[in-house]
């Protein structure tokens, strides 16, 4: 590892296409488009980021902002098992530990799936096969990538269930998913994802389907396991509380693009994009007394078929008219540096945004 990566730069600079990145995971100009009868759905439209081992990146955004599509894209799950005529159109580059995944042999990517990179899904009840025992599903995940007999794999499954805090793992290994509670199921799902010691773990809304008390336990578990295994983790969520808990860096997505990214501290305390302000304003906080009503982000998420021209956020942005010449509606803003390793894509002037944040937004939060 280089000196730079040791210092923990989880978010790299936006890079032009140049091969062999130094980061463990580097995504460059990723586009995932789906052809439909109504037109081309641009779920992800030019996303770049990088991530080092041992670090956690939180991707936040509302439903349909392209968070999950990004994660499935990294896993190669848009192309695997696509049937019929309509196929997702994917372009860009995804470098994982020196291998470019989009141009790699699909069977090679399949062998990386579940071993070098694995995923935790949102709803563990529907993400586990209802007809197979928890143990059988973990054993299967292990034996795809390890040439061991069933007994050894089963021992490994019990060990993993124990590790994620399932009581009596040697008995529960033979239970079916419907015999587990929601939190237990998510623990089992995590055990399954980690059974092969993956170097990259993608958690797609890992706590959304769980009740609040269990959420905290699951987040603690993910954090502990990351420390133990030293994996790179991507947490995808619409819940800023979750990323506050876990992430070293935050990437805010809107309309299939990154609108702001940087170290978690900076994005939380010095956000430089009006959409991030909106997200923070709509987050309930228990640590503040006497809070006024939550401030929702006005309007609804953009259509991914007809993404608004200019800045995708302009129809909902209270400051859209501030920049001159109607530029917010005609020119798409590029990510620009607003701090150390901190970028935002906005037409407002840097100083202007600093002023709006400190004078208008921050006091209300």
């Amino acid at each position: 590892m280089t000196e730079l990566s040791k210092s923990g730069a989880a978010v790299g600079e936006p890079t032009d296409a140049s091969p062999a990145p130094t980061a463990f995971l580097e995504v460059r100009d990723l586009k995932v488009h789906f052809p439909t009868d109504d037109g081309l759905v641009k779920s992800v439209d030019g996303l770049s980021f990088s991530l080092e081992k041992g670090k956690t990146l939180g991707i936040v955004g509302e439903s349909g902002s392209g968070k999950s599509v990004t994660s499935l894209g990294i896993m190669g799950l848009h192309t695997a098992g696509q049937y019929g005529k309509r196929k997702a159109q994917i372009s860009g580059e995804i470098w994982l530990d020196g291998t470019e995944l989009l141009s790699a042999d699909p069977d090679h990517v399949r062998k990386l799936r579940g071993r070098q990179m694995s995923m935790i899904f949102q709803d563990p009840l529907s993400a586990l096969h209802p007809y197979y025992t928890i143990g059988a599903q973990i054993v299967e995940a292990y034996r795809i990538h390890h040439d061991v007999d069933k007994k050894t794999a089963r021992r490994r499954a019990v060990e993993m269930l124990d590790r994620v805090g399932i009581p009596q793992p040697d008995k529960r290994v033979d239970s079916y998913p419907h015999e587990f509670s929601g939190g237990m199921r998510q623990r089992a799902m995590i055990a399954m994802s980690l059974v092969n010691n993956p170097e990259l773990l993608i958690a797609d809304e890992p706590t959304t389907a769980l009740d609040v008390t269990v959420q905290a336990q699951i987040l603690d578990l993910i954090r502990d396991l990351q420390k133990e295994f030293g994996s790179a983790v991507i947490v995808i969520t619409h819940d800023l509380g979750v990323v506050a808990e876990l992430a070293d860096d935050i990437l805010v997505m809107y309309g299939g693009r990154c609108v702001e990214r940087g170290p978690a501290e900076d994005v939380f305390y010095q956000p430089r994009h009006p959409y991030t302000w909106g997200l923070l304003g709509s987050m309930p906080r228990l640590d503040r007394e006497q809070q006024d009503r939550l401030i929702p982000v006005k309007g609804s998420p953009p259509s991914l078929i007809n993404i608004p021209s200019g800045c995708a956020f302009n129809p909902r942005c209270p400051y859209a008219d501030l920049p001159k010449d109607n530029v917010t509606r005609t020119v798409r803003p590029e990510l620009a540096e607003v701090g150390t390793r901190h970028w935002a894509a906005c037409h407002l002037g840097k100083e202007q945004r600093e002023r709006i944040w400190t004078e208008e937004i921050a006091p209300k939060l």
Partner: protein
Amino acid sequence: MLAYLIRRLFAAAVMLVVIILVVFSIFFLVPKWAGVDIATSFVGKQADPHAVAAVREKLGLSDPIFIQVWHFFKGIFVGRTYSAGGDVTHCAAPCFGYSFRSEQSVWPVLTDRFPVTLGLALGAAVLWLVFGVAAGVLSALKRGTIWDRSAMVIALGGVSLPIYFTGLLSLAIFSYGLNWINGQYVPLDQSFSGWLGGMILPWITLAFLYAAMYARITRATMLEILGEDYIRTARAKGLKEQVVIGKHAMRSTMTPILTMLGMDLGALIGGAILTETTFSLPGLGQAVLTAIKNQDLPIILGVTLITSLAVLLANLVVDILYAVIDPRVRLS
């Protein structure tokens, strides 16, 4: 699992008793209330009143209803004796009575014809399962392509064309036109190849209809299952696509197919009337058709009970298989 099994078996036994009672009531008591004299129907229109009275006595038709039901019920399990004056006939168990027309005992008629129908139904089922499910899975995997479209058009034809059309067409082409197959039915114990030759067209005809239905249901189910989260999980593990489809998706797709198979097989074992008539197969369906024409109540009753039993057994087997496939069923 064992408790589930015992519960299901017990329920099936109770159901069987209820079916026997209800079916007997329908066939013997309803004519009585409707003013139709079974004894007259047995003897013939210009009957000697003495003969009618003798028949009425022998069949116990003047007994109270519950006695009649009891005798019938007892007859099935331990046999019964018909007697009128000096005329005594013992009918050994399982006794379903005697045909009004041929005066044969009903049970041997059933046992003669049952293997024909069973062979027809099982053979066709194997064909339609193999081809219907395969076509359905392939259509689902090639959704929207020319393969999918053609398979579904053929399936639409299969579902829409009646057996007496496809059956006669296949006879006209393969038996009379090309002369490949001698359409005569030959019992299995006489000649295996002869039996195969006689059964192949009925199998194909019957299987075509059902394969079409199964292809459609398989395609729809498979498409639904392929969208399930746990299929995505299976891929995320790094499983080969063949395993994702063949193991994870197929196991779930089998559930509705199995339900259909249970009902269809049960109903077919009671007699595939159209197929048997088209191909002159001496099965239960043909027997019951003749019996209905002749108002031969005991035969109709016998076949109806056999059908009910077949449906009951088929459903029992399906329920047990269900519990084997889907662990969630075992609890409830």
